[in-house]
């Protein structure tokens, strides 16, 4: 199959899965409608509707190729960073540093990814922005909670911009025998990690008994974790044909990114718990904020990127 055929086949598969989900959601809605409002089913249905929109957005970005994907993830970073900073207690003295984070660091990082300057985009935020933001905050001479404010702003940038930019950065990898197919790496990463989230949610709702981290998140269970990770890992292995990997390699990598995704969810839940909120935002109906949807991807993307770069690139 050509790349285009594989991409179309992949999106057709996702659309088929979503169609089944929509039908199930509709049947559940019909069956329980008479018993009054049912928040869990309503939430399920708004989640499914949002999935349709997100898949459509990703498909649109794919249609535009590299530029489309970079714009999509730059916008996702912007939305995620604004959600993160909104819930971070910054002060007036951080204003300039934050303006630089939003309007300089973020676009420049994606520009560097666009021009494929690996040597700079892989150190730009961890080194240069890291030093610059602390300096800008210091120049304002507001020392109250200085270290905490600087550290939290940097951490937010690392997760929402630096880590997430590794998704479009996959397009710049030179993999022997895989020329012109790198979009499918993004499809593999996003599909496997997101289906892991969905399958953990489904397994947790159906079988969940023992909470896995009750202090962080009451909805994450041992059963959801095992069932979701295992089934999404099998899915990853079954998708080996769109990757440069053998089936067992695809399964191993899927397991790795699913675990990273799970850890991302845990870490971001810990932050939300500390801030006293349930969701990062309200942009995606049924899911919460953009960061609620991408927490797993932000942790999986850099590790996925570097694993492939180290073991597979020329």
């Amino acid at each position: 199959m050509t790349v285009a055929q594989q991409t179309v086949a992949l999106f057709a598969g996702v659309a088929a899965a979503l169609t089944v989900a929509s039908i199930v959601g509709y049947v559940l809605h019909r069956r329980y409608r008479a018993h009054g409002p049912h928040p869990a089913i309503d939430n399920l249905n708004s989640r499914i509707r949002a999935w349709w929109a997100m898949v459509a957005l990703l498909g649109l970005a794919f249609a535009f190729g590299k530029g489309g994907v970079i714009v999509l993830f730059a916008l996702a970073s912007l939305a995620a960073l604004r959600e993160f900073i909104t819930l971070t207690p910054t002060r007036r003295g951080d204003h300039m540093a934050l303006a630089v984070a939003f309007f300089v660091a973020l676009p420049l990082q994606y520009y560097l990814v666009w021009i494929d300057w690996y040597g700079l985009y892989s150190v730009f935020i961890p080194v240069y922005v890291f030093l610059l933001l602390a300096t800008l905050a210091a120049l304002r001479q507001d020392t109250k909670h200085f270290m905490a404010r600087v550290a939290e702003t940097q951490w937010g940038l690392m997760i929402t911009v630096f880590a997430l930019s590794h998704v479009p950065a996959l397009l710049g990898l030179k993999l022997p025998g895989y020329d012109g197919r790198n979009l499918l790496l993004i499809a593999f990463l996003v599909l496997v990690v997101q289906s892991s989230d969905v399958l953990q949610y489904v397994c947790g709702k159906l079988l969940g008994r023992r909470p896995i981290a009750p202090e962080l998140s009451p909805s994450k269970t041992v059963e959801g974790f095992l069932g979701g990770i295992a089934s999404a890992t099998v899915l990853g292995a079954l998708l080996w044909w769109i990757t440069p990997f053998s089936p067992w390699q695809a399964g191993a990598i899927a397991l790795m990114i699913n675990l990273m995704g799970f850890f991302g969810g845990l870490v971001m839940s810990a932050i939300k718990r500390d801030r006293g909120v349930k969701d990062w935002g309200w942009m995606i109906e049924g899911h919460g904020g953009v960061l609620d949807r991408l927490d797993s991807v932000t942790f999986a993307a850099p590790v996925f990127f570097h694993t492939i770069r180290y073991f597979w690139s020329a």
Partner: protein
Amino acid sequence: MSSLLRPIEAACATAIVIFARLVTGVRGEWRGCAPDPRPRVYFANHRSHADFVLIWTVLPAPLRRRTQPVAGADYWLTGWLRRFMGARVFRAVLIDRNPVSREADPIATMAAALDRNHSLILFPEGTRNTTDEPLLPFRSGLYHLARARPGVELVPVWIENLNRVMPKGEFVPLPLLCTVTLGAPFVLGTGEEKAAFLDRSRKALVALAAPSRADR
């Protein structure tokens, strides 16, 4: 002349609402009441010139057209653009804040708007709060208005984060998310004293603030 400008006024209002939504992602949380067409007084914390725009933005469009911010004439009557925006787009109820020079009683001006079945947006602190305190002491305007129109519902409205979008003295707005929380309406109690009423109103407003982020 005025009817010719009507579409421009409406277009400006829509553009401002869209812009406010884009920059602040503002969400209205109707915690204590639902939108209601009867005249109300929405009273809010005041940290930014754009405060009333956010309240305006979260109101459903039919209510927005009937809701007028109360603003200082000294600010909104200087320059043609402010004059146009204040008088025609926001339809502000302009009051003279200087008790010596003013010709009209501000309370009577506000009450007249309520009598026309319009709602008001009022900032009882009287001026923008640039301190670290959540709220300045209330001026007495809210009390006098409540006494002039005792049946009218007073709705506390807490605006969260707009001061971080554009703090005083900064020139680049940050795209942070804002929330407008509308609390439970109340009215002036029979025989309620001014100090007790203002204290109660102030507490009702502060109670809507997000607890964890007020200060660390």
